[in-house]
């Protein structure tokens, strides 16, 4: 039971990560691979403040989010003046460079990472309480992002992403919107990092490697990029399904490759069968129906 609850905590954390990444890359159209480093900044800041200053976990997690926001604004102000491939390269450099810094500083624990992060909740209810907290924050994140993207500001984000020159020609500052979207997404990733650090009580650089952005991207794409529920579905599928085979009691030499094969097979299947993602495909179907209805009514009007 403890194992299942731990997997559910991990799913909740990845729902937060994938949803925030979706806000940046799916809604904002900002091609970045630096999301794991903002997750790391949140995790390391929370862990260090908890260990050295004994601050309450809530304060540590919020401080982690603030550090992630500040770092994201620094990256955004320099890198978001460019777009497309250049932004991708700048974010890659930021991710790799900052992770090297984390690996090489003594106070961050070097390559070994940081252990003995304070246990803020003790007793037999520790994991269920953490699940409640992480699940609530995941739900809050999804709700907050839905509120942003479906409101007037979200329409401005969509407009900026789709036609930047036309958007700017209407007197709207595309750069400000990019920086704000980037900062919100990265700040949320910082919160996910803090939650991870306090639950698992151990962080190390390898948990925040650039390859993790591929996993987050896969969750977003499989679920449906640019949809609110897509990353939720993607995170649940890509964490729960590979973990489910652990109940088959296979030998460890078979288990790990099997999880990789399942992950890859899911990606391949979705690419061919539902390229817009599970939720994205449903939204597109609805949109197609709506457009057809509008066209027929427009035709009737003419």
């Amino acid at each position, binding site marked *: 039971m403890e194992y299942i609850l731990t997997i559910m905590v991990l799913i909740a954390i990845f729902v937060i990560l994938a949803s925030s990444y979706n806000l940046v890359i799916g809604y904002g159209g900002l091609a970045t691979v630096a999301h794991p480093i903002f997750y790391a900044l949140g995790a390391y800041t929370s862990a260090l403040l908890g260990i050295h200053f004994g601050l309450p976990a809530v304060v540590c997690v919020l401080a982690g989010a603030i550090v992630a926001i500040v770092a994201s604004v620094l990256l955004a102000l320099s890198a978001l003046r460019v777009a497309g491939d250049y932004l991708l390269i700048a974010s890659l450099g930021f991710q790799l460079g900052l992770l090297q810094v984390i690996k090489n500083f003594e106070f961050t624990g070097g390559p070994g990472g940081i252990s003995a992060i304070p246990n803020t909740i003790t007793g037999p209810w520790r994991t269920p309480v953490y699940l409640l907290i992480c699940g609530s924050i995941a739900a809050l994140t999804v709700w907050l992002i839905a509120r942003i993207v479906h409101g007037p500001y979200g329409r401005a984000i969509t407009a900026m992403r*789709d036609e930047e020159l036309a958007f700017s020609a209407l007197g709207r500052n595309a750069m400000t919107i990019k920086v704000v979207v980037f900062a919100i997404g990265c700040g949320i990733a910082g919160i996910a990092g803090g939650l991870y650090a306090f639950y698992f009580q151990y962080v190390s650089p390898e948990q925040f490697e650039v390859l993790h952005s591929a996993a987050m991207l896969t969750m977003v794409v499989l679920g449906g990029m640019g949809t609110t529920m897509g990353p939720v579905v993607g995170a649940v599928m890509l964490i729960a399904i590979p973990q489910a085979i652990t109940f088959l009691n296979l030998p460890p030499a078979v288990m790990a490759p099997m999880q990789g094969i399942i992950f890859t097979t899911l990606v391949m299947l979705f690419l061919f069968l539902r390229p817009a993602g599970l939720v994205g495909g449903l939204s597109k179907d609805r949109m197609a129906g709506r457009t057809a209805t509008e066209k027929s009514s427009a035709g009737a009007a003419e």
Partner: protein
Amino acid sequence: MLTYSNVNVNYGGLPVLRDISFKVEEGECVAILGHNGAGKTTLLKCSVGDVEGATGAVSYRGEPVVRGAVFMNSRRGIGLVPQGHNVFRQLTVRQNLGVAGLNSPGGALDDVYRLFPVLEQRGSQIAGSLSGGQQQILALGMSLMTKPSILLLDEPSTGLAPVIVNDVMDSLRQINNSGTTVVIVEQNIPATLKLASRAIVLKAGRTVFDGASRELARKEDLWTWF
């Protein structure tokens, strides 16, 4: 109102605009004509500061156009309707107008609906499902939401049926008659010469004609200019 002084632009060492100088006066309707690659779109983009590495000066009402900040020039009253991708296809007509009007307190929605009743009728329709002509009308309406003093249009007739082109040109005439200065880049020479009082012809980045549209229309060798 809008002044170009010795404007030069090179793309990768290739000259696109060469020593362009002219003035657009308040209330004018000016056509910028020329063949593909003559530099028309680049010239228009210089007016909103969207061309890197342009030399010379472009000023609006005596103040230099801010380079690299299209939105700031738009807020000063320079409206631009880019070619093609000029509406937000995933949003409804009303949402498109909403995005356009957020920086103009009080808004110009009533004026836009009066000029283009179709936009009110199709308010809840997704912009991407509108016809080409309706999308162009929407793009015009969106630009008018910013209450521009001068409206720059990049080939608004591209891809439209002739009858729709006439509708778009009529709308532009109304906009110009209401006091908004219009600068239109076009390849549809006959329709544009009927609309504009003045024409500027670009050839390989240079101005080869700047005068009355009637004068250009009368030229027997008109098509050799393009």
